[in-house]
């Protein structure tokens, strides 16, 4: 059987992650740890969703386990997962050579581009709940979609300037491709150095897939999920209301006020919104949301997510203004002393 050219010395799953992280770290990315609240995609982590807002340049990379309850298959489908792993790279503003950098990253994980067919095919990304969209491509390697490449244009309903370049690698797919295995569960996660024993993806994750598929499809308590959703939503809305009364976008009258504003937990409100999004996905997988309700519930969550983005942007602006004011105050204090 023809191999994919490098299966013998193919990277393990964890080496793949190391290589990509090292590659991007060497190109100026801060390596962040995965976000610890359930998200459906790396884009939803505040390290992407909130950092792409505002003018401050960002270079960040992180692996993000991404939960999609409806995609679970009880561990029985070789290509589908309840929870897969994305490697997310955000470059704001995008460097001119961003595509070349991306192609170099493929070389860095052992893909000799001269031995493969690579295409950038139009694929525009959209997350209506986050008021976010961008244009870009799906990157096809020998007919396999291995990456989503997006130039963010709007986020939280706001135009972005500068925009961000987002590169999202599907790690399981790439690992299965590199190792030439037909099932994700056969991916070699790592090899024990002393014994040479291969630890597979299935060994590490199969029970999780089985149990969370069962939870999402069969066990999750629908009335309680609705109740959780209601509670998280209420708390998030209360915080958004609180933010409104603080007039975050106006200059602070005092240092205390500036500090209070800086400490206002917009990030906490975002986590609550993410919780709602995950609960929505669970309810959806459970078949508990009729198409009738669907639009309405999505609009509720959109109000939270977009609301948080607006407050976050205002807080950032206020913090910047306050910071420059504070410098002036301190400067003049020296003169008086």
């Amino acid at each position, binding site marked *: 059987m023809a191999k994919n050219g490098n299966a013998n010395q193919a990277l393990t799953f964890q080496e793949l992650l190391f290589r990509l992280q090292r590659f991007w770290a060497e190109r100026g990315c801060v390596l962040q740890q995965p976000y610890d609240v359930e998200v459906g995609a790396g884009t939803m982590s505040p390290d992407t969703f909130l950092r792409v807002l505002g003018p401050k340049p960002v270079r960040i990379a992180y692996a993000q386990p991404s939960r999609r309850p409806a995609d679970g298959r009880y561990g029985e489908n070789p290509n589908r997962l309840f929870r897969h792993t994305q490697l997310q790279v955000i470059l704001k503003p*995008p460097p001119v050579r961003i595509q070349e950098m991306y192609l170099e990253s493929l070389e860095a994980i052992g893909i000799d581009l001269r031995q493969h067919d690579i295409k950038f095919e139009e694929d525009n990304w959209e997350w209506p709940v986050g008021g976010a969209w961008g244009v870009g491509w799906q990157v096809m390697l*020998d007919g396999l979609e291995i990456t989503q490449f997006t130039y963010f244009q709007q986020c939280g309903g706001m135009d972005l300037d500068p925009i961000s370049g987002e590169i999202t690698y599907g790690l399981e797919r790439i690992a299965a491709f590199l190792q030439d295995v037909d099932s994700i569960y056969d991916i070699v996660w790592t090899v024990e150095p002393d014994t040479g024993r291969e630890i597979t993806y299935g060994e590490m994750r199969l029970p999780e897939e089985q149990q969370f598929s069962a939870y999402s499809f069969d066990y999750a308590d629908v009335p309680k999920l609705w109740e959780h959703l209601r509670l998280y939503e209420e708390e998030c809305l209360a915080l958004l209301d609180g933010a409104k009364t603080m007039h975050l976008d106006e200059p602070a009258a005092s240092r205390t006020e500036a500090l209070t504003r800086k400490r206002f937990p917009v990030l906490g409100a975002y986590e609550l919104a993410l919780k709602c999004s995950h609960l929505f996905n669970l309810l959806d997988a459970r078949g508990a949301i009729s198409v009738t309700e669907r639009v309405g519930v999505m609009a509720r969550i959109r109000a939270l997510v977009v609301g948080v983005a607006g407050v976050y942007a205002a807080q950032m602006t206020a913090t910047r203004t306050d910071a420059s004011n504070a410098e002036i105050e301190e400067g003049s204090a020296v003169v008086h002393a």
Partner: protein
Amino acid sequence: MPDFLFEIGLEEIPARMIAGAQAELTRRVVELLRHERLLAGAPTIRSFATPRRLAVLVADVAELQDDLSEEVLGPSVKVAYRNGAPTPAAVAFARKNGVEVDALATVSTAKGDYLAARRIKSGKLASELLAAEIPQLLAQISWPKQMYWRPGRPERFVRPVRWMLGLLGSTTVPIEFGGFVAGNVTYGHRVLAGNAPLLIEAPAAYEPALLAGFVVAEVEVRRQRIRKALDRVCRTIPGARWREDHELIESVTQLTEWPSVLLGGFEPEFLELPDEVLVTVMRDHQKYFAVEDAEGKLLPHFLAVLNTESDAGGEAIIRHGNERVLRARFSDARFFWQFDQRIPLVGREALLEHVTFQRDLGSYAQKSARVRVVAAALAAKCAGVVDQAAVDQASRLLKTDLTTELVKEFTELQGIIGGLYARAQGVGELAAAAIYDQYRPASMEDRIPRTAEGQIVGLADRADTVAGMFGLGMEPTGSKDPFALRRAANGVIKILAEGSVALSLPEIAETAAEGHFELIGRMLAFFRERLEFYLREVKGQSYDVIAAVLAAGANDVRDASARAEAVSSVRNAEEGGDFVALSAAFKRMRNILEQARDKGLVIPDVVHPTLLLEPEETALAERSADLATQVEALRSHRDYVAALRAIATLRTQVDAFFDAVMVMVPEGAVRANRLALIARVLADFSRIADFSEIVVAGS
């Protein structure tokens, strides 16, 4: 004269947008050159496009605009001279134009004599003009979707600009756009040529240099290369051919710079899956060409168009990768196909209660129940030609495939999958075909359902959707048609026009709207608008013919279409002259009658022979009465062409009538009788079309 070459290098342009942008760029560049007087005669133009570039090459462009000599009018002679000596106004005008007063000419205009100076506007350099104008031209190119990429959002374009090349002869034209200044280099294939710039010394060297850089820049050359390669590779399998697919050819042509074709295979057991599923996976998801034998039966092979060229080793790797992806997708499809069989369609009716059709219109279970009633009523009206039991079975199972995993995976195959499952599960062939065809026609180019049963079900489904949405006040407005109601109504029209069931638009609207009078009226107005669209866009009928025909009746779609065809054919045939003249006369009659009514004159129903004074009016009265009987017989047999030809012969009497007879005479009884005569003629001969709507040249 030198050639002009402009190339803009971009990150991968979406395949679907390339052809339009290429044409627009070429057109705008040629217009600019022409507008700036830089082109002589018919220029030789070539244009190029790949996913990473758009380029235009125009031969023989002037380096310098010709000087333009223009005459500038100055003060009038009266003001310019006093007592034979130039006034300050004349002196100032001469100075402004850089000539002596003596050198000024005098020209006569309608307003009198004026001084004039001849001024030479010296031509500008082409490279300066192009550098100044092309950036604006680029900004005007229209894209379906654009993006910002640079901080400060200075421009929008389809994708970020990566380089530009501008050459007039061997001179660089420094066009600035997207943060780049055009130079004299381009770039070859991403992988095969690497990132090294290719120096282009003159426009003619562009295409060969790119070929050496593994880029076939001309679209047609690439298209032919792909077609030949598909043929060549296919020949390695005896008796095989690739399934022709124009759209897919276009798509892969615009996805590649250096195309090659790869033959791959899959396990023959996947051929147990329906062709529709296999082809959808190959074509829509993977952009592969399907391979079939001489009888059109699928073979376990596919053809992938690559954007590279590799040795045998590389090709084996790429083939392996593509086969792996296809196998995974086919495995998924087979899993769903088998999984779905656990619950046959008949067991899925109840599951539709959980699938919402529309918030206020309820679930698909409710929709199916309504469609079933409408379909049954329509089938009853066509009792002789449709199998009513099959219609009922099809409408019950119509939407059940929405609950299957295979449709959730391949939404574009809804309906088709239902039909395939119905057949596999032993549901009757007629019902299965009706389910399979339910979304056809998907467009005005698409075919309608093959069977009368399928047509009835398709009509009922669409009419129910239109009635439901209109009932909620959700009519399409302007470009907004979120529920695709226009497409639904277009489907109704096309099925009625081309199908085998004889149903009228009022019958359909009344059945679907359950007798709600006001709703029926709105539906009929909407159907009529779609019928006009159909006659115009699909049948190519002109506006006036459509207006004329529909004024004589718009309930029977097929009949209206036949009448329109007859009117157009007679108008364009030998009788056309008589016909058009008659139309003008009918318009005159209508105007006379309208004026009479406006004046409050009573138009009697009966023409009294005793009041016909002139021989011409007697002739018209008698001839038209005879002809009316003849035309009515032809019309009732729907022999519209013959009927129209007969009507056209009336021109002689009509013309003679208008030449000799005045209608609006003072004597009341005579006038009333003449009005009655022309009213009768109009009524008798406007049953196929209202000819007064026909536009007569010059009127």
